[in-house]
C-alpha cells in the first residue's frame, strides 16, 4: 500500500496539481479520495471484522509521513485518523455498517466536533449540553475549528450529559447530521489551504441510536483518539519537514551568488546541518510516539506523544523559518511552494497543542526516564 500511495502522490500531487485541488470546491480532490479508497488507505485503522485492515499506529505513521511530503489537502487526518479512531473504539455493529463501511469506501466524510472556543489546554471542558427530552436527546451549544466541517456528511459531536463543565466524566459522543435544521455552520479557510468550521447547535434532537459509545464515557475515547491523532500529526510534520529540508538543500546547491553556489558558504552549510539534526530528532520522536501508541500503558502513551509534540514543534519551527530564510525572497511568495510547507508546519505545530503546552503537560507527569 505504501508503494501505491507513493506512486499515486508522485503522479497526481505535484505542486501544480495541489494548487488546482485547492482552488476548486470543496478545496480538496474527491478523485484522489476515491483513489485513496481504492488502495485501501481509508480502511487502514479499522478492524478487519468491520472491513478494515487492522492497521497499527506505525502504519498510520508511514501513511501520514507521505501525505505530509505533498502537503495534501484531503481530510485524511480528520475523517480517518480522528473520527475513524473514535468509530473503531466505540461504534456499535450497526454504526459500523451504516457509517464505517461508507467511510472506508470513500462515500462518507466524518469530522469530529469537540473543541470549543476558549477550551485550549482543558481537553475535558465541554460546554455543549445534551439533555433527555422524552426518548430523544436534545443538544445545544457551539463547536469551534471543526476540521473540514464544510465537507462533512456526518459530525461526531461531544456534549456534556452530566457533571461540571471540566469533568472528565459526563461527556457523551453523538453522531449528528450536519444538514439538520438548527445547525449553523460557518466555514473558513485555514492557512494551510484546508478549511474548518464553527458550528452552532440549537436544540437539535437525536435518538439513542446516535450515541457513539456509552453515555458519560466519551472522554476516555476522545483521549485515546487524540493521542493517536497526535502521533499521526507528528508523522505528518516529519514528512513536511523532510521535503522542505530536501528542497532547501537542493536550492543551496543550485542558487549562485558571488559566482558560487550559496551552499559553498559555511555559514549556510552549518545551518543546513542544524536543520538536518532537528529533522532526525523529530523523526526519532515521531517513531517513538507511534511505537508507544501500540502499548496499553496510558501514562506512557501520554508522555510519549507529548514529548514527541515538543520535539516536533521545535524542529518544525527551526526548519520552517530557516528554509524560508535560505530561499530568500521567493520563500515568502504564494507562487513558490516552500512558503506553503512553512505554513503547514506552523499549523501542525499549533494543532492539538504547541510545544509549550505539551512541555507543561510533561511537568506534571513522572520523568520520561523514570518509567523505565
Amino acid at each position: 500500500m505504501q508503494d501505491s500511495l507513493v506512486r499515486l502522490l508522485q503522479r497526481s500531487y505535484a505542486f501544480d496539481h495541489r494548487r488546482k485541488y485547492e482552488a476548486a470546491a470543496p478545496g480538496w480532490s474527491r478523485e484522489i479520495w476515491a483513489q485513496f479508497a481504492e488502495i485501501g488507505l481509508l480502511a487502514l485503522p479499522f478492524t478487519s471484522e468491520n472491513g478494515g485492515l487492522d492497521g497499527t499506529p506505525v502504519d498510520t505513521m508511514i501513511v501520514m509521513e507521505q501525505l505530509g511530503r505533498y502537503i495534501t489537502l484531503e481530510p485524511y487526518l480528520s475523517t480517518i485518523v480522528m473520527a475513524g479512531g473514535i468509530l473503531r473504539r466505540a461504534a456499535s455493529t450497526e454504526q459500523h455498517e451504516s457509517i464505517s463501511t461508507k467511510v472506508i469506501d470513500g462515500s462518507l466524510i466524518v469530522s469530529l466536533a469537540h473543541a470549543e472556543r476558549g477550551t485550549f489546554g482543558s481537553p475535558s471542558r465541554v460546554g455543549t449540553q445534551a439533555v433527555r427530552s422524552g426518548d430523544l436527546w436534545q443538544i445545544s451549544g457551539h463547536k469551534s475549528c471543526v476540521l473540514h466541517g464544510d465537507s462533512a456528511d456526518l459530525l461526531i459531536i461531544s456534549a456534556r450529559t452530566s457533571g461540571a463543565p471540566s469533568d472528565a466524566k459526563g461527556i457523551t459522543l453523538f453522531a449528528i447530521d450536519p444538514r439538520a435544521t438548527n445547525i449553523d455552520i460557518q466555514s473558513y479557510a485555514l492557512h494551510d489551504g484546508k478549511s474548518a468550521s464553527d458550528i452552532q447547535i440549537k436544540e437539535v434532537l437525536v435518538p439513542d441510536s446516535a450515541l457513539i459509545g456509552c453515555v458519560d464515557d466519551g472522554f476516555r475515547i476522545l483521549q485515546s483518539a487524540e493521542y493517536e491523532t497526535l502521533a499521526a500529526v507528528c508523522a505528518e510534520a516529519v514528512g513536511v519537514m523532510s521535503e522542505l529540508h530536501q528542497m532547501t538543500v537542493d536550492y543551496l546547491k543550485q542558487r549562485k551568488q558571488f559566482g558560487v553556489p550559496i551552499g559553498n558558504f559555511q555559514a549556510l552549510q552549518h545551518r543546513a546541518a542544524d536543520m538536518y539534526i532537528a529533522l532526525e530528532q523529530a523523526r526519532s520522536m515521531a517513531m517513538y510516539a507511534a511505537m508507544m501508541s501500540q502499548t496499553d500503558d496510558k501514562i506512557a502513551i501520554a508522555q510519549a506523544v507529548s514529548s514527541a509534540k515538543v520535539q516536533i514543534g521545535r524542529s518544525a519551527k527551526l526548519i520552517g523559518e530557516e528554509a524560508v530564510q535560505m530561499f530568500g525572497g521567493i520563500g515568502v511568495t504564494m507562487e513558490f511552494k516552500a512558503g506553503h510547507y512553512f505554513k503547514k508546519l506552523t499549523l501542525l505545530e499549533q494543532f492539538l497543542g504547541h510545544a509549550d503546552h505539551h512541555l507543561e503537560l510533561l511537568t506534571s507527569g513522572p520523568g520520561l526516564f523514570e518509567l523505565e
Partner: protein
Amino acid sequence: MELQFNADEIAFREEVRAFITDNLTEEMKQGMLRGGYLIRDHVIEWQRILNKKGWGVPHWPVEWGGAGWSPIKQSIFTEELQLAPAPRPLSFSVYMVGPVIIEFGSEVQKKRFLPRIANSDDWWCQGFSEPDAGSDLASLKTNARREEGYYIVNGQKTWTSYAQYADWIFCLVRTDPTVKKQMGISFLLIDMKTPGIIVRPIQTIDGGHEVNEVFFDNVKVPVENLVGEENKGWDYAKFLLSAERVNLARLGVSKERLQRARELAARTPYQGRPLLEHAGFRTKIAALEVELKALEITQLRVLSAEGQSHGAPDPASSILKVKGSELQQATSNLLVQILGPDALRRQEDAFDDWSSMITANYFNWRKVSIFGGSNEIQKTIIAKSILGL
C-alpha cells in the same frame, strides 16, 4: 526496526546491572560522582574486573576477547556503566588504539598489545593534536625519519589526556613532507619510557590536570612499531575518529546527571519549598528529557543501521556527537544552577559530597563539544557527507 528492548535485551540489562551492583565499590562510584576525572587505580582495577568476566572489550572481535554482542547490547552495557556510574573505560586504549591494531596492525602487534589493552596492563594516550593542528589535523608537523631500523621522531603533541599515566602513546607523524598533507602521515606506537620524551602538564580552567603537552626530541622508535603501511596513517586515523564519534553520545552520562538533578532539586529549598516543585524548574528538566529521549531513539536508529560493530560508522553518528555533547553540557550546567550560591565556592572540601565538584565539572565539560572533532567539524561532515553541500 524496534525502538524498545526485547525480552532478551531486558534480561541482559538486568544481568549487567546485577554484575555492576555486585562488583562496583562505593569508593569507585564516589570517585565518578565527584567529577568524572579518571582515577588511575580505579580505571585499572575496574577494567580488570570486567575483563575477568569477559566484558573488558566487548566490542572487539571474539577472537581478541570480544563478547559477540549486538550493537544494541553494547550500547546497553555502556549506558549501564554510565548510569552506575562506574569508572569509564580508557577510551584511548579500548575504543581507539585497540580497534586500529585489530583492523590494520600486524599479527605480532596484535599478540603483543591487545591482551595487555584488554586487561589494562598498559595505559595508552593519544598523540594526534598539535599546537598548529587542531581541527585541521592533517597539517600536523611532528616528523619521523627512517634510519637503520628506527624512526627518529621530533616534534610536539598537545591536549594529550592522561599522558602523565601513560605507558604508550599512539602518534600520527609526518613521514613524507613532499606529498599532499593527508598522504604523508604514518601511525606509530611509541613507548613513553623512550629517551627524549618530555611530558608537561596543562592546567585547565577547572583547576585540574588532565591534559598535557608531549615533546619528542630525537626519539628512537623501532620500525616494527609502525601500524599498517607507511604514509597510510590518515586512513587509520579516520577509522579511529569515526569510531570515537559513535561513542561520544554518552547518553547514560546525561541520564545519570538528570536523575541527579531531580534528586538534588528535591532536597534544595527555594522560596520555602523544594526547587523540584517549581514549575519553571520542572519545565527546564522536562525540555532536557525530551531532547535526551530523542537522542536515545536516534542512537538506536544509527546502531540498528550499522548492524555490526565493525561496519563503517554512519555519518549520521555526527548527530550523536553534536547533540550528545550539548546535552552533557546542558545537564552539567543544570546542576550548577540548582546549587545556587553554593556553586560559587571553589574548594573541593567545601561540601562532604559530590556537589563540591559540580561547577568545576561544568567548566571542564566545555571540552566535550571541542574534542573528538569539534561540533563545527561534525556539522561540516553532515553538510558534506549527508547533504552533499
